[in-house]
């Protein structure tokens, strides 16, 4: 009888121990606690951003690896060249290094299908955050190696210096941040979530030299993705019929009608109702339409010609209604350029 009681007690302790360990393991996490950043800046300013973070680990045996920090920002800001990050933490201080695009992200086939690099895998997972124009990239950095042990909490702070507006354009953009494990990547499993994504409000950068404003923050009736492209790029003409009041709200089919200007001053107009000009609704009922074109072929220019600009309207099938910039009589306008 006594023997039986001993076995039961032992089993009870085992179950209790397993439960406690299970609870501890399940609490593994990476978290951005707070971000301090300005929401206005001038083109060329170096802005200070601080990010407080907490990492809870339950590694037994302990594991060594870097922490990854990624920032979503306009491609034209050339973030890899124009960002420096230093950090302090309860595991030591140091500087972060930019991760080159040639490096495949951690995560294996389960959490990095296709073996993408870090920026591409972040874009697959988090897209362009809360922005509306594609021309954004995740710029990714790694800390020095840190040894994470069992039931440990690491707290730290990142001190980021970012030069904004390297392309000279005014911009409204919602920056976003991700921290994750350099060993594991963007993993969610029974032990926890090994990343945290953090989104901010709109940062307004003014005082640019080009006279152009790229408004990533606001839904717009008409945009072209990427906003910086040449006639030999694939460009996507996007029309969001619900972005503002306009007579094409509720339309089930919309078409492109536009004129391109070549470097030698020739104008070429495409004005027809056909598959060539029809935009496709991205999701039924979404009111968001798009069409991918290769401008050189679309406007049928010769091999020696180059397109410099484009002005266009979106029309209905009968061409009785046409919508332009901000629902005015002015057309949407686009310059073919890379900066």
């Amino acid at each position, binding site marked *: 009888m006594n023997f039986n009681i001993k076995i039961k007690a032992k089993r009870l302790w085992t179950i209790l121990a397993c439960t406690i360990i299970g609870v501890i393991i399940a609490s593994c996490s990476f978290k951005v606690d707070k971000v301090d950043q300005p929401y206005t800046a001038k083109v060329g300013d170096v802005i200070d951003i601080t990010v407080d973070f907490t990492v809870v680990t339950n590694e037994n045996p302990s594991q060594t690896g870097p922490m990854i920090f990624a920032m979503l920002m306009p*491609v*034209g800001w050339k973030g890899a060249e124009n960002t420096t990050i230093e950090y302090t933490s309860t595991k030591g201080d140091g500087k972060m290094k930019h991760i080159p695009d040639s490096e495949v992200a951690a995560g294996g086939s389960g959490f990095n299908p296709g073996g*993408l690099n870090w*920026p*591409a895998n972040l*874009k*697959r997972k988090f897209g362009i955050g809360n922005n509306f124009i*594609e021309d954004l*990239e995740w710029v990714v950095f790694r800390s020095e190696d840190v040894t994470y042990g069992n039931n440990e909490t690491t707290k730290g702070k990142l001190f980021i210096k970012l030069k904004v507006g390297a392309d000279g354009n005014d911009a409204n953009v919602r920056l976003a941040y991700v921290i994750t494990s350099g060993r594991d990547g963007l993993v969610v499993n029974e032990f926890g979530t090994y990343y945290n994504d953090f989104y901010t409000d709109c940062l307004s950068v003014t005082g640019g030299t080009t006279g152009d404003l790229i408004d990533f923050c606001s839904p717009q009736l008409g945009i072209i*993705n*990427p906003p*910086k*492209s*040449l*006639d*030999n*790029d*694939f460009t*996507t003409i996007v029309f969001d019929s619900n972005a503002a009041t306009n007579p094409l709200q509720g339309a089930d089919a919309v078409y492109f009608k536009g004129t391109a200007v070549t470097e030698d001053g020739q104008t070429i107009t495409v004005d027809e109702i056909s598959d060539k000009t029809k935009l*496709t609704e991205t999701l039924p009922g979404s009111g968001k339409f*798009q*069409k*991918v*074109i*290769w401008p*050189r*072929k679309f406007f049928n220019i010769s*091999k020696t010609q180059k397109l410099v600009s484009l002005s266009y309207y979106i029309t209905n099938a009968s061409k009785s209604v046409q919508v332009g910039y901000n629902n005015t009589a002015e057309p949407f306008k686009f310059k073919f350029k*890379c900066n």
Partner: protein
Amino acid sequence: MKSKCKWNYVGIVIVAMLMMVWSSCKVEKVTPITEPNKQLSGSWKVLKATRNGTDLTAGYDFTKFRIKFEGSNYTLTDELPFLVYENGSFGLDDPQYPFKITFTPTGGSAASTAFNYPTVDGKRRLELNFSSGCTQTTYVYTLVEAE
């Protein structure tokens, strides 16, 4: 006599064991495996196309495009934004472990790009990375052999 017979028996066993050891100790001859040259011959079509990671495949008609490798030459059918637009010759930096492919259109200048040659579901794929317009815009065409 009895003792001699016993030794003979032991001797037979020893000889048998030695023979077994000898016969078991064959040196395995390992023939070095030669990585075959990568064969691109044939006609390839676009399976997938991305722009800075965004999938464009469903949004544009890629179905007519073909690039045919034959000997050291390539020919293009239909045009897409690409490295070259005229037929010509091509070369790999290393036929066994290629990392880069170079297209030289007839009468034009050479254009090189990194490429991968993975096998997926038993079929070879050809992945080409390039920029055709702005350098910050990168395309990846994943090609498969056209049936």
